């Protein structure tokens, strides 16, 4: 009987193609919206997590100022001193290494090519606190570091723009007023979590940068590596106390520096994107329910409009359950068809939007399966009422219906 009903339902859908399409439109949009939102949400979360973990975990970033993008007003808090770096490295338990950073920008020139880039001065500890392997060449020696030699390790973007396909290690190029030997090339890291190309950088010993670029011994930023055995929160608290003391901040005053735990940021951002994903999904889910109501609407209209047809079927010898099943199957087939079209549409939308947003294309099987399942359930739930109404019709009245 189900086979028969299926044939009948398909025929009836085919007879009213436009109406069938309009009926399913709500489901199509609902399913597409849910799948797209959830998938993009997952892709964003994954992307954020990956970006942040590329900064390295178990790392504390210590900066002057009170947080990201601190607005104007008041004098700029002072940078850190080399002695601060020493103090943190020596006095706080659980600190594996402290990498000071001094930053500047300059134009790098090699033969005909020039490229404006970031100059990052640091110590060898920089490569200890975070994993950033070299693609070629070597790190600088401690002699080179303490002597402030003009040796450079360049990011891949700089390599591409200056040296194209040629060999970079062993070449000499100019950066600002400094003539610099390339001793190493870093492996590719990609986009940073908050925009910006992490590979667009020239790394030199901090002394070189301080002497030749910034002109001070100040340290802009410290990366503090934390031992696996210690919690980042404890170390963070230790650094805060130490720096407050060293920067003579009296009790009751706010810190004039900030410490970011990358793992904490990662967790916070992940939970934020997850929450946003849930909210948007809920909204999309509502559209799915509205789509279901749309199906019920059209099916009810269709039962009224097809009263005579139902009368014919009953006169011919259809039993009530067959009429019920036919309308139910029609509703389910319609909504599942809408589900399939919605899924396809979602893949297109995900492809387009993730390309636009620089996200990786993600296919999440569960959410596709769930959305499809929901569309089928909607067909049953919202198809049942109209179907029962059709099955309850009296054949004589139905045949007389105009």
């Amino acid at each position, binding site marked *: 009987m189900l086979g028969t009903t299926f044939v009948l339902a398909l025929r009836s859908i085919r007879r009213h193609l436009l109406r069938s399409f309009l009926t399913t439109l709500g489901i199509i949009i609902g399913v597409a919206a849910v799948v797209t939102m959830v998938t993009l949400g997952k892709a964003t979360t994954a992307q954020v997590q990956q970006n942040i973990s590329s900064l390295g975990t178990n790392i504390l970033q210590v900066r002057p100022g009170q947080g990201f993008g601190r607005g104007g007003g008041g004098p700029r808090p002072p940078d850190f001193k080399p002695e601060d770096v020493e103090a943190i490295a020596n006095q706080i338990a659980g600190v594996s290494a402290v990498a000071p950073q001094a930053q500047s920008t300059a134009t790098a020139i090699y033969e005909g090519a020039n490229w404006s880039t970031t100059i990052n001065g640091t110590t060898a500890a920089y490569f200890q606190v975070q994993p950033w392997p070299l693609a070629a060449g070597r790190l600088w020696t401690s002699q080179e570091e303490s002597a402030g030699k003009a040796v450079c390790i360049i990011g891949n973007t700089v390599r591409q723009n200056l040296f194209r396909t040629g060999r970079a290690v062993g070449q000499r190029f100019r950066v600002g007023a400094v003539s610099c030997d390339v001793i190493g090339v870093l492996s590719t890291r990609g986009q940073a979590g908050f925009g910006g190309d992490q590979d667009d950088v020239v790394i030199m010993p901090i002394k070189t940068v301080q002497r030749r670029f910034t002109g001070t011994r100040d340290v802009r930023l410290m990366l503090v590596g934390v031992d696996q055995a210690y919690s980042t929160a404890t170390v963070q608290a230790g650094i805060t106390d130490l720096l407050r003391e060293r920067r003579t901040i009296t009790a009751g005053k706010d810190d004039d520096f900030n410490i970011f735990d990358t793992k904490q940021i990662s967790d916070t951002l992940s939970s934020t994107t997850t929450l946003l994903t849930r909210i948007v999904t809920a909204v999309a889910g509502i559209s799915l329910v509205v789509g279901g109501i749309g199906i019920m609407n059209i099916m009810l209209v269709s039962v009224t409009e097809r009263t005579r047809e139902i009368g014919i079927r009953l*006169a011919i010898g*259809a039993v009530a*359950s067959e009429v019920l099943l036919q309308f139910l199957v029609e509703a389910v087939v319609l909504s599942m068809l809408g589900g399939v079209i919605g899924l396809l549409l979602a893949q297109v939308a995900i492809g387009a939007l993730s390309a636009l947003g620089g996200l990786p294309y993600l296919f999440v099987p569960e959410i596709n399966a769930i959305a499809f399942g929901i569309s089928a359930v909607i067909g049953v739930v919202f198809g049942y009422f109209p179907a029962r109404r059709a099955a309850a019709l009296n054949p004589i009245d139905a045949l007389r219906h105009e």
Partner: protein
Amino acid sequence: MVAVAAAVVVGAGAAAVASNAAAAASPDGADALIALRGVTKSYGEGGTAFQALKGVDLDILAGDFVAVMGPSGSGKSTTMNILGCLDVPSGGTFLFRGYQVETLNRDQRALLRRRYLGFVFQGFNLLSRTTALENVELPLLYRGDEKKARRELSMAALEKVGLDRWWDHTPAELSGGQQQRVAIARAIVTQPDVLLADEPTGNLDSERSVEIMELLTDLNRGGITVLMVTHEPDMAAFARTVIHFKDGLVERIERNHHQGQPVEGGA
């Protein structure tokens, strides 16, 4: 559903013998295909109740061609609805092939219709936007025939009504006469015992009407019992038995002594 089907399984063979039909009620109605005894039907309740049938006794023998006539409100449509198992009497009994139809439920009556009855309506009642073949197939689909059998039987039925070449046309592409032929093909495709026709020529011009009546006469000769409601004496003249209704009762029963052809000048 299966249980319901089992309840309607019939012992007697279905061969309807074209005999000299007699519409007069025999005492027990045992040899009649259809027997109504004291059938009443009322609509509404209490003071506003309307009694459409006031005790109809009627036997219809297998193979007869019966025309039912009468003014509107005489009870002929109600009788046809009961005979078509679409409705049940309020009182009395209706025997059809040994079943007491008034005791059957909705679905059991639906199965009786499916197996033994075919319907032709005044307004053709074909499914729109559906080919003639698919329309004719419909009862077979409900009966559960396989695709191949469905197709063969439906084409055979269409051939019988002379429309096999029009199988892929939808009702909108067919004339009224052709539509009614498709409807007749749909009614006979299951080889029913009884064909119920409710004013089958009501929407057709006289030429098409005669064609339809000739077709019904042919089918009747092939063994199908035909029950037809009409208010046109010309059409009733094709029948062998004419039952006149008046005020909810059988007024009189006439016999046309011809072999399925109308007598010149009417009955």
